[in-house]
């Protein structure tokens, strides 16, 4: 089972706030679940992929220094957003793939929780047709 170090959680949390800003509203328990969901999802993947993901987190920090002269945690919100946009749309396919994977895991951690359903206006029902006909 993959378990993030405090440092890895720190980088991931900074990125999560840029990618899904509402994560900032999570309680401590929900934040723990958020990381647990991502750890669980990654643990089911091959070890190579897990290592690549952790390496990618490090690489983002390095790229932040190279591009903006500051580590990720010292960048302001605009700088982080710009960095993420470059990762997503930049010329390097490998980075775009990595960022897509990172985004997907963050969205899974946040939007994959059943508690999110009500706040986002998703109220599923096994008897949907009953509500359809109202």
């Amino acid at each position, binding site marked *: 089972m993959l378990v993030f170090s405090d440092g890895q959680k720190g980088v991931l949390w900074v990125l999560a706030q840029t990618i899904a800003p509402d994560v900032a509203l999570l309680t401590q328990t929900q934040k723990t679940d958020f990381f647990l969901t991502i750890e669980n999802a990654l643990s089911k993947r091959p070890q190579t992929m897990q290592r690549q993901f952790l390496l990618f987190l490090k690489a983002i920090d390095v790229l932040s220094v190279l591009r903006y002269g500051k580590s990720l945690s010292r960048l302001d919100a605009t700088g982080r957003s710009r960095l993420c946009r470059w990762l997503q749309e930049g010329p390097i396919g490998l980075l775009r793939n990595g960022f897509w994977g990172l985004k997907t895991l963050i969205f899974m951690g946040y*939007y994959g929780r059943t508690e999110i359903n009500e706040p986002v206006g998703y109220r599923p029902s096994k008897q949907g047709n009953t509500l359809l006909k109202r």
Partner: protein
Amino acid sequence: MHTKEFDIVVVGSGAGGGAVAKELAPLAAHGMKIAVLEWGPKFREADYTGREVEMANRLYFDGGGFLTKDRNMTLAFARAYGGSTVVYTGTSLVIPKETLGRWGVPGLSWDDLSRRSQKYKEENNVHLLEPDLINDNNRLFYEGCRQLGYQVEQFPLNLKGCQGSGMCNMGCPNAAKQGTHRVQLPAAEKQGVQVITRCEVKRIDMETRALEAVVHPQESVGEPSKWAPGRYQIKAKIVVVAAGAVNSPALLLRSGLGGRLPALGRYWTCHPALILVAQHDRSITNYYGHPKSYYCDEFVDPDKFLLETCMYFPFVTAKNLAGFGPEHASMMKRMDRLQMILVLALDEALAQNRVTIDHEGNPVVDYRIGDQTIDSFVASMRASAKIFFAAGARRVHAPAAKKFFIEAEEKNQIDALITRDDFKLGKVSISAAHLMGGCRMGTNAQDSVTDVWGQVHGLPWLFAADASLFPKCAQINPYLTIMALADRAAEAVRSRVGELKTQPVGV
């Protein structure tokens, strides 16, 4: 190592394996030993919770996010009693005559496939949904298409007692969808076919015809397997491989057939898909009711894409939007206002797109999103944006647009705002669930794997009977065609019954 002996073993219990099991069941009723080996568990009604991530992990390989080798696309395919029929939406279309003509397989006639498809339509209670059960998400698509003069058709669906949970892709919680887990497998079991769940087949010994398999231990959900956990050697006289377009080629490659059959694993197609999303300025009924009522085949020629209605859940929706941050969050905050369209690109069957195996024998899908598919995607985003706006959407998100939202006021600039230059692999979420090919049927062992009846070239005891048989993509939702082809394979197996009676097992 446990040892078992059967006359016929079917690997996989989805549309192909389930159809074969039912068609061969009368043989079991007359004393033949037939087993279906299914990797996944048999789920109980209570196991279908409708919780998105939980169900994705229970039902799908890699939680529905099986990555292709270059990581530009994810594949969704299931493992369960019923295979991917547990998670499809039940759209039941007969393959078009033109498509079969394009396949160009001598001896495979449209009349024959159509007749067999019709049989399964009746068996699976296929019908059109009543108008009062069609939600806004579907109705708006229909109206948008009609307003633009696009051809739009209603999907026939295989439902019985649908309650409109909208949770089809997580497994129906109301037992309404008539997949093989509801129809063919129970019918086969009644006649004596054994279905062994949690049973992963590792390889087939080509000399002895024995399958090496592992029965996995019981987990927290699903019924226990009928066999104890452990390693098994399963001897058979006839083997039917129906593990799907990823696992069937991988199983045959692990079994050493790659050298003998150069086309094995190749010519793999999958209808690469985009999920496109628009926002209305009011709540619409979208996640109540069946998610898939209509399709538009206006663009099959020359643009090579199909449009269908769809509706997904919060996480899948979030990951399919290209972008992040406040705009993304603002789209996600109103799931009740979202309209969705599914794009299916009709991809070419190319030899280089293929299933291989890694050093541990796990399947690797080596598939490149080609220029034609990207062109189809760009054209499909433009067409979909026009449909969304014609249906009254306030704003549209297109993954290859110059900005996150295209507003209704900009609807006349769609072609300028959605361009090929802005389509970047890796940025755009591409997924696929119609996995086809890898054991394509044909006439010779150089460019195909099986004959027109699904028998593997040169091996009269070995058959494929699933979507891996498709020589090219189906250009429609494929499950009914899978069943029709499996029906043919079952017929070919039945014709060998005389030989079986005099043949010792495992020789």
